[in-house]
């Protein structure tokens, strides 16, 4: 049993990983074939996700949760519209329901962030908090309409902060992420990282 549950998945994962990597180096078209199979599996996983969403909320709905019932009904209605094409099909749902709701949440996010910055001053009293809030204010002033002479000053400060501090910080984070990505991938290829083998 151990051989089917642990050894064979490990051999397959390492084999396909190495073959894909080598093909990427010498024949990228064939490598694309293998990643195409992975995309197909990802599509199957999405169907599993929808079944999971449906079963979790159906159970909650039976327990009397109103929002879960709304979700189950909306999911079923969208599926019906998608398959039948009635009333413009699924595009109607995306245009008149999902897009406005997502836009509304996106707009709320700006207020959440503004109040979070204010709360941060109450929550954490240290120089980093002051620096964070001061930088936010400077950046906001840099993009706010003002008299010309003030606008030029704040715009140049904004440009300097973005070019030097923000770029340096982001590059530092991204280099760290890239190094982490390399080592995680190599551990998978060596078979020492086995997230598929619990």
């Amino acid at each position, binding site marked *: 049993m151990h051989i089917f549950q642990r050894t064979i998945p490990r051999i397959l994962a390492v084999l396909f990983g190495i073959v894909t990597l080598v093909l*990427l180096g010498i024949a990228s078209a064939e490598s694309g074939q293998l990643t195409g199979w992975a995309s197909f599996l990802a599509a199957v996983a999405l169907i599993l996700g929808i079944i999971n969403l449906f*079963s979790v909320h159906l159970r909650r709905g039976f327990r009397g949760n109103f929002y879960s019932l709304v979700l189950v009904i909306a999911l079923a209605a969208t599926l019906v519209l998608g398959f039948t094409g009635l009333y413009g099909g699924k595009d109607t749902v995306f245009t008149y329901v999902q897009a406005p709701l997502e836009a509304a949440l996106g707009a709320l996010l700006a207020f959440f962030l503004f109040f*979070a910055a204010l709360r941060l001053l109450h929550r954490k009293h240290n120089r980093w908090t002051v620096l964070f809030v001061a930088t936010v204010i400077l950046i906001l002033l840099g993009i706010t309409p003002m008299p010309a002479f003030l606008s030029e000053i704040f715009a140049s400060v904004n440009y300097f902060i973005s070019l030097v501090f923000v770029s340096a910080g982001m590059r530092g984070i991204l280099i760290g992420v890239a190094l982490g990505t390399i080592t995680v991938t*190599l*551990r998978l290829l060596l078979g020492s990282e086995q*997230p598929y083998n619990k």
Partner: protein
Amino acid sequence: MNLVALLIAVVVGGALFLLTRRIQAGQEVGLRPLRGIQALTSQVGRAVESGRRVHFSMGRAALNSSIAPTSLAALAALDHLAQDGCASDVPPVVTVGEGTLLPAAQDQLRGAYTQAGRAGDFSNTMVEFVASDTSPMSYAAGVSYTVQHSNAGSNLLMGHFGPEIGIILEAAGRQDMEQIVGSDDPVALAVGAAMSDELLIGEELFAAGAYMKGSPSQIASLQVQDLLRLIVVAAILVFAVINLL
């Protein structure tokens, strides 16, 4: 160019393999303390001791995408949390924002239940798929609902997130939850800096598994990362000097 990348992969892979063998042979390796990881372990400990569950959201990086390692790092952290939680009868509440993460997270939780000797208690609905990766705001709204109704004591967001993370952090903040954000995305980290208690910045997220579980290959990968970082820093300095001349 692809052949150069292949050559680099072989060299770095060889270094990782050798360092792993040295640690397996008994070489001691000291890990420098990371504030984010210390906060993570103590926060989870406090939640478990008080009998409250931990909410763990894995973001929305697909396992077949170029940012999959971020999700794999989150899975490594979930592995540890799930083992601790299942052993104490307070399993984590797990939410995912991408289809491929669902079976992976279910597998981690199932493994933790099996290790705790309670395989029969596991159900696939213990991990919740919230929305696909193309709808970040729907994902944030769904996770916020779960956070508010799960009676969790701690909120851990580890994986790939965007600015929508602010909505989840706001919802958890209203429940007075302790929060930690670990992400590869600078925007999510900036939002997390304002709204969460502690951050795992970039590579710290990838180091979480090594600090929490400490398998030889994970610790060896930290050594390789340090080595690569020195090479990158040296290369940046050399090219900066050349450009100045």
